[in-house]
C-alpha cells in the first residue's frame, strides 16, 4: 500500500501544478476543510445511530431497525427530515444572535477536528500548540449555547444556557489540568510529538497511577464538557424540557444535536491521543502497515465514546449545585495534587517505559 494519507500536502502539491502558490494553498485548505466537513457530518450521524443502538441494548430494546438494513440509514432519513422542516422561532427573539448561535456551536466543534492525528500522516493541521488549541476551541462552543439560550426569549432556554455557562467554565479547569498532567510526561503540546513519545508505551502506562487518575478526571470532566448525562444540566429534559435549544427546530436544531455528538467524538479523540497512543497499535503489531492507524485510532475513540454512552444510560443526573461541588471540591483539588505527583514521578524518572 502506498497511499499518501498526508492529504493537506498532497492536495496542495497537486494544485501547485497548475496555479500560483498562494491561491493553491488557500484552495487546498478549503478542499481539505470540505472533505473533513463531509466526513464528519456523516460520522456525526452515525454516532447518533450508535448512541441509539447502544441505548436500545442497554434498555432491552432493539433500536432503529426500519430504514435500511439494521437501521443503518435511520439517522440519514432523520437528517433529511430535519432539513425539510420549517424553521420556527419566537416572536421577540433576538433574531441575529438566535440565528448565529447554532453556527457558533457546530463550527467550533468542527474546527477542533483539524488537529487530530488519525495516522502518522493523516493529520490536516499539525500545530505546535495542539493541546492548547483543542482546549481553547472546545470552550468556544459554550458561547453558542449561551447565545442560543439568551436570544430565544424563553426562560427554560435561559436557565439552560446559564447552567451551561457555569458548567463549562468549571469543568474546563479540570480538562485543562488533567491534560496538563500528561503534558508533563511528553514535554510538548504538539500532538504528533505526543504520539511519538508514546512509542515507548502509551502515556496511561508510562504515567501509571497519576495517569489513571488524570484519565478518570478527564473522562468525568469531558462528559460534563459535552453536556451529556449525568451532567446534562443544560438540557435536563425532566427539568427544563429541552433546555437551551427549546426554541430551535429543523436544521438549526440539528446543528446543536450534531455538535453534541461531534463534541463527544472530540473528547474521546483527545483522550485517545493523549492517553492511549492515538494511531499506535498495541505492542506495534501493525507498525508495518501505516494506514491501519486510522483503524486503531477510531477503534480506541469509539471504545471511549461507548464508555460515555454507558455513563449516560446508567446514571441519574446531578443537581446543579452538586455539579459544582463535584468540580470544585473533588476534581480540582485531586487534580492539583495529581499534577504534583506526576511532576515528582517525572523528576525521579519513575515512569514505565518499554
Amino acid at each position, binding site marked *: 500500500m502506498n497511499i499518501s494519507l498526508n492529504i493537506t500536502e498532497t492536495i496542495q502539491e497537486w494544485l501547485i501544478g497548475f496555479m500560483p502558490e498562494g491561491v493553491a494553498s488557500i484552495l487546498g485548505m478549503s478542499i481539505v476543510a470540505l472533505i473533513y466537513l463531509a466526513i464528519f457530518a456523516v460520522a456525526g450521524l452515525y454516532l447518533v445511530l450508535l448512541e441509539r443502538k447502544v441505548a436500545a*441494548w442497554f434498555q*432491552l*430494546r*432493539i433500536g432503529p431497525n426500519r430504514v435500511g438494513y439494521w437501521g443503518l440509514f435511520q439517522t440519514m432519513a432523520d437528517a433529511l427530515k430535519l432539513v425539510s422542516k420549517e424553521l420556527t422561532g419566537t416572536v421577540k427573539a433576538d433574531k441575529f444572535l438566535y440565528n448565529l448561535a447554532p453556527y457558533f456551536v457546530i463550527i467550533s466543534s468542527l474546527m477542533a477536528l483539524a488537529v487530530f492525528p488519525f495516522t502518522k500522516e493523516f493529520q490536516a493541521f499539525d500545530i505546535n500548540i495542539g493541546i492548547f488549541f483543542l482546549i481553547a476551541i472546545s470552550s468556544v462552543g459554550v458561547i453558542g449555547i449561551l447565545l442560543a439560550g439568551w436570544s430565544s426569549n424563553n426562560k427554560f432556554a435561559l436557565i439552560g444556557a446559564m447552567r451551561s455557562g457555569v458548567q463549562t467554565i468549571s469543568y474546563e479547569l479540570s480538562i485543562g489540568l488533567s491534560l496538563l498532567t500528561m503534558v508533563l510526561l511528553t514535554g510538548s503540546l504538539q500532538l504528533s510529538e505526543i504520539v511519538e513519545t508514546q512509542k515507548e508505551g502509551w502515556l496511561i502506562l508510562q504515567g501509571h497511577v497519576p495517569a489513571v487518575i488524570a484519565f478518570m478526571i478527564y473522562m468525568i470532566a469531558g462528559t460534563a464538557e459535552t453536556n451529556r448525562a449525568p451532567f446534562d444540566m443544560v438540557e435536563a429534559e425532566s427539568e427544563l424540557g429541552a433546555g437551551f435549544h427549546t426554541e430551535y427546530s429543523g436544521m438549526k436544531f440539528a446543528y446543536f444535536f450534531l455538535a453534541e455528538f461531534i463534541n463527544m467524538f472530540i473528547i474521546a479523540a483527545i483522550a485517545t491521543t493523549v492517553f492511549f497512543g492515538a494511531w499506535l497499535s498495541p505492542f506495534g503489531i501493525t507498525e508495518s502497515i501505516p494506514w491501519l492507524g486510522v483503524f486503531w485510532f477510531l477503534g480506541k475513540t469509539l471504545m471511549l465514546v461507548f464508555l460515555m454512552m*454507558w455513563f449516560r444510560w*446508567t446514571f441519574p443526573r446531578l443537581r446543579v449545585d452538586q455539579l459544582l461541588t463535584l468540580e470544585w471540591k473533588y476534581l480540582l483539588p485531586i487534580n492539583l495534587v495529581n499534577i504534583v505527583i506526576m511532576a515528582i514521578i517525572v523528576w525521579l524518572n519513575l515512569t514505565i517505559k518499554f
Partner: protein
Amino acid sequence: MSYISDIYTGIKTLLTGMSVTGKYFLTSRKGAITQQYPDNRSTLKMFERFRGEVVMPHDENNEHQCTGCQKCELACPNGSIEIIWDRGIDEATGKKKKFIDKHIYHLGLCTMCGLCIEACPTDAIVWAQNFENSTYDRTQLTKVLNRPGSKVKAGVED
C-alpha cells in the same frame, strides 16, 4: 478521611450500577422486551378474555340469540348501545313477541367496561379479541351487530 472514603464508595456504587446495565447490554440481544408490532401480527394472540369490541355471534343459519330485552342498553353507562326493536308474531307459537330490528353499537363511545355482557341473560353478545379498531371515519365506529336478515334462534327466551 471521610473525604477519601466518600470518593471510594461513590465510585464503587457507580460501578455496580454500570455492571447492571452492562449485563443487560451483553444479554439484551436475546431478551428484547419490545415487540415488533405490525410484523408479528400473524403470531400475536390476545388472551381469550381480552375486551376488544362487543360482537354478536351468529350461527351457520344466520341466527343470533338476542331477544331484544334491552338489558344491555340499560346497563351501559355511556349509552353506546341502542336497540331498535319491534313486535311481531312468533311463527312457532303464534304469540306476539319482541324482536330486534337493529342492535346498534357505538364503538366510539364504548369504554369496554363489560357491563352489557354481564347483563345479557341469553349470552347474545360477547367480547371479540379484535383490537385494531381504528378507522378513517368516525361513522364507521357505529356498528350494527345483528347481520342483515338474521333472526333470533328458536327457543331463546329471556
